[in-house]
């Protein structure tokens, strides 16, 4: 056993931290208050090879592993979870199914431009009436000539208003519930595709979230991911596993910045004529936070390590997401309890960390769903 990052990984961590502090930090306040994503970042981070980290070199990516992706996501979310959200989708849900199951042509067409930040990707599975129950989606893709006609609505789609392409789940065979689904790549300019509205959220203000419509949207069959009709949900297995592990890294990043912020607040604050750090209640809370962070980090990187060896099960990934996102709730709640009124003020960051953290419990499988997945894989 060897729990430490290698020299190479430490070097990478240092590099990404510098890049994110230089390129992302100055944008946070402005874009959080505008509730828009700083799209210029795609080109900037693309040039630094920090989008699509696991994309192989032959498709324009740096060809790194899951551990590196977690390092990058932890550092980015330490600075801004909203921006982290848009970047995560680019290298995860939007492009992973293409990477694993796309034809050579599709990969050549979409991956290099996504990895370089020339094109922004989104992923559309969730619908107004189908979230956790993916097989309940109603969007259809009915065969017509040399392609498919898509009809349906998608919601809560990250990068929805800014995307150049979107990977969409739709039923090619609505009779086969769950198994009759395929994934398609839809371009922004495809007739019939439209952004209905931009959505406002509780947290991750700087990530872009939208409701999308597909109205007789024609997609040539070459843009279906995979060769055969059906099995689209199965193609998401590895993508979801990977995404759930990324939530471990995101939670660790937000947890770390919350911890650092509140630690420096405590060290610089006096209450009732005593340094705050002398209060036993405060010391207990800080000890709990430090303990949670350690456990979150080890669990995340062990999950990533397993993933890189092809050994991670969905149970491993769900345990990481559930444990880390739930531990993060306690960290931000404690920080708020320590800072009290000051923490509530919008000019201070603790309220943002608390809002961002709450959001993490929901996408890519809610905490409740993670419990069910874990129990199922326990054979219950």
């Amino acid at each position, binding site marked *: *056993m060897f729990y430490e990052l290698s020299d190479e990984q430490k070097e990478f961590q240092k590099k990404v931290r510098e890049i994110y502090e230089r390129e992302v930090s100055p944008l946070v306040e402005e874009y959080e208050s505008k509730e828009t994503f700083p799209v210029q970042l795609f080109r900037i981070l693309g040039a630094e090879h920090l989008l699509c980290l696991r994309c192989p070199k032959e498709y324009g990516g740096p060809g790194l592993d899951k551990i590196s992706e977690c390092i990058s996501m932890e550092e980015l979310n330490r600075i801004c979870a909203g921006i982290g959200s848009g970047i995560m989708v680019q290298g995860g849900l939007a492009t992973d199914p293409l990477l694993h199951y796309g034809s050579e042509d599709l990969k050549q067409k979409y991956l290099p431009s996504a990895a370089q930040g020339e094109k922004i990707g989104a992923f559309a599975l969730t619908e107004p009436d189908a979230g956790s129950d993916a097989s309940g989606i109603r969007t259809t893709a009915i065969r017509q000539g040399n392609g498919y006609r898509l009809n349906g609505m998608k919601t809560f789609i990250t990068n929805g208003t800014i995307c150049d392409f979107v990977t969409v789940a739709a039923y090619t065979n609505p009779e086969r519930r769950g198994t009759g689904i395929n994934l398609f790549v839809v371009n922004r300019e495809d007739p019939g595709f439209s952004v209905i509205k931009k959505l406002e959220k509780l947290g991750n203000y700087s990530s872009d979230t939208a409701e999308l419509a597909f109205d007789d949207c024609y997609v040539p069959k070459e843009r279906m991911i995979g060769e055969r009709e059906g099995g689209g949900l199965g193609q998401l297995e590895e993508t979801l596993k990977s995404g759930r592990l990324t939530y471990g890294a995101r939670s660790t990043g937000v947890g770390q910045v919350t911890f650092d912020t509140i630690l420096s607040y405590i060290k610089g604050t006096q209450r009732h004529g005593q340094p705050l750090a002398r209060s036993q209640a405060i010391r207990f809370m800080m000890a709990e936070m430090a303990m949670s962070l350690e456990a979150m980090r080890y669990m995340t*990187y062990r999950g990533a390590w397993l993933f890189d060896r092809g050994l991670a099960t969905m149970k491993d990934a769900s345990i990481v997401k559930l444990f880390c996102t739930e531990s993060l709730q306690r960290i931000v709640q404690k920080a708020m309890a320590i800072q009290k009124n000051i923490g509530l003020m919008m000019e201070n960051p603790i309220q943002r960390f608390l809002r961002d953290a709450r959001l993490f419990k929901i996408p890519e499988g809610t905490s409740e769903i993670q419990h069910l997945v874990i129990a199922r894989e326990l054979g219950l």
Partner: protein
Amino acid sequence: MDFELSDEQKDVQKAAREFAEGEFDPDLALELDQKGKFPESIWKKAAQLGFIGIHYPEEFGGQGLGFFENLLVIEAFCRVDSGIGSALSSVDLGSEVILVNRNAIMYQKWE
């Protein structure tokens, strides 16, 4: 990063498990627990087999393995019986203090 046990660590874990499963008789464990007695005979066997002080340098009668291996042994023991496991895992606490501070005067005295 490497989260896997090495072959040697797996061997240590397996040996400790087998020892605990073979030696920690449930009836004896219950009796020791009720009487509040130390598992003397099991302790001696465990020591002979090298489980006690497994992390001590060989020159001091240990196996020269790491504290990590010691934890594997304690986990394996306590999984079978926490009373016996705790007793066996704490017998070396006193000597460990001497080991850790072996450059200090204490060491000279107890050498």
